């Protein structure tokens, strides 16, 4: 067989073999993503860290029986969300984590190439509209753009069908588009 793998696959095989170095690298690569992800659903950073701890201990304990072909990012997020659920339920009974989804978009104007006052206003409007989106749509946008997941994967994490997931995303985009159409100078006609 002729094959070259990008490094994720090799890292995962190391994890399955139980190699300490592979676990360390996995942690190095994904701890921040998991941390930020956890903070979307619960504000207590200590609990989020406990969940990361429990996730890695589980991976280590069951390393030999992990599935060989996985998208690591998706796999970790899915397992991590189970940990978050368990922790949330333990603390305050049966609660819906998704209802807690917190994300605030900001206009980091300093870091953007803004040409003139009108464009600044447009960007600010866009950020405001993004923040006004319903929690589920925000969550979807977050999973899509921030966690770099496919619709199929997002659907699994959000507990909805792939079709619903696509509809939800289309609706979010459509709404944005309509809101932005009324902007003083829409993004669409800039430049």
């Amino acid at each position: 067989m002729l094959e070259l793998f990008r490094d994720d696959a090799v890292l995962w095989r190391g994890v399955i073999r139980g190699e300490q170095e592979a676990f360390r690298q996995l942690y190095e690569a994904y701890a921040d993503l998991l941390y930020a992800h956890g903070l979307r659903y619960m504000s207590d950073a200590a609990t989020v860290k406990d969940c990361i701890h429990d996730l890695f201990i589980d991976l280590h304990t069951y390393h030999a029986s992990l599935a060989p072909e996985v998208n690591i990012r998706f796999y970790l997020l899915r397992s991590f969300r189970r940990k978050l659920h368990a922790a949330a339920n333990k603390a305050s009974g049966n609660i819906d984590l998704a209802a807690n989804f917190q994300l605030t978009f900001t206009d980091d104007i300093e870091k953007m190439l803004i040409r003139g006052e009108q464009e600044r206003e447009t960007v600010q409007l866009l950020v405001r509209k993004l923040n006004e989106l319903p929690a589920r749509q925000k969550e979807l946008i977050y999973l899509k753009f921030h966690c770099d997941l496919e619709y199929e994967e997002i659907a699994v994490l959000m507990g909805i069908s792939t079709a619903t997931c696509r509809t939800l995303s289309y609706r979010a985009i459509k709404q944005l588009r309509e809101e932005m159409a009324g902007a003083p100078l829409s993004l669409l006609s800039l430049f």
Partner: protein
Amino acid sequence: MLLFIVNRFYAAQKQQLAWLKKLLGLRDADSSQLLSILSAAGNEKLPEDEKAALWTRIEAGMKQPVKRRIRPMFWKAAAAVILTAGATWLLWPSSPTQQALVAYAMSLPADSNLTETQLSLGAQRNILLPGKQTQLRYSDSGAVQSGDARYVQDNQHAFNTLNVPFGRIAKVTLQDGTQVWLNAGSRLVYPATFSNHAREVYVSGEAYFEVAANNAQPFKVYTGDVTVNVLGTSFNVSAYEQEAQAITLVAGKVNVEAGATQVTLTPGEQVSYAAQQQPNKISGTNTDAYTSWKDGIIIADHTPLHAILKKLSRYYNHTIIVNGQSGGDTFSGRLDLQKSLDEVLNTIGQTTDMDINRQAGRIILESKR
């Protein structure tokens, strides 16, 4: 690893930009603005100290004996170490034959124009052994068997030399049963039969050793600058000219001397010597990545592209270089060297998304632009 994640991030971003453009009908510049807004939020990072503390906690948790898996192979290797590796190896007196062997090896010409593997019995008798992979076996008397041919030594204690040019590899079973795989562009010098107190060989280039256990006859490998002291064990020696020398231990135990420094290796450990520098020891190496060449496979393990190409250059005896900055990109996986060079290059081209061009006898990998 870091490089890889960065690459992946850009790939994902490109995809997302395309998605935004299509759905919103945005131009590139607008999509970038929107994407930077979307991905700027929710980016909390674990503070470095908390990140380190959490890993310490996880590491401690992993060491709790939840389920201790005992792998049979591990115990076999451990038993071999106990049987063969005594504590006496540091005390061996330096051997009188060492100087003769190393002096002889140093006196040999470079033979850089060889195109086939060559066996020399003493300084006079040179035998060409054509073929991609040569196999040799020594008998107790020092006679050499290669395929159907058999060569008897004029002098049992004469130094024999096996020269393996670029584009060829060889495996030799020495008189004591020790097996040595020689990589392309390598040379092994050794007596046809070993003396009673020591087994000593000289290597340049790269060799993998599976040393037959024998407490009474310590085995030593010399390179230009390094001496490896062994009992029964398996290890890889990489000592190409103008490259850092590296010893990688697969099983057993070895002691490596370079100048006044001594380093003891346990399985999975590697020590390397860059010019004018202190020995650098690392543990937990993927030893397969260093020894797989003997089975005609390159196993890359976070290996930079230029290093993979260097190995291919030696194995196929063809200059292969990479243009631009992609040489530092790392890859992992297997390349089967039984395939033709073209097939192997195609695989690399597809994985790296690079064009493969031939110019003036050289193969040049270039980023598609």
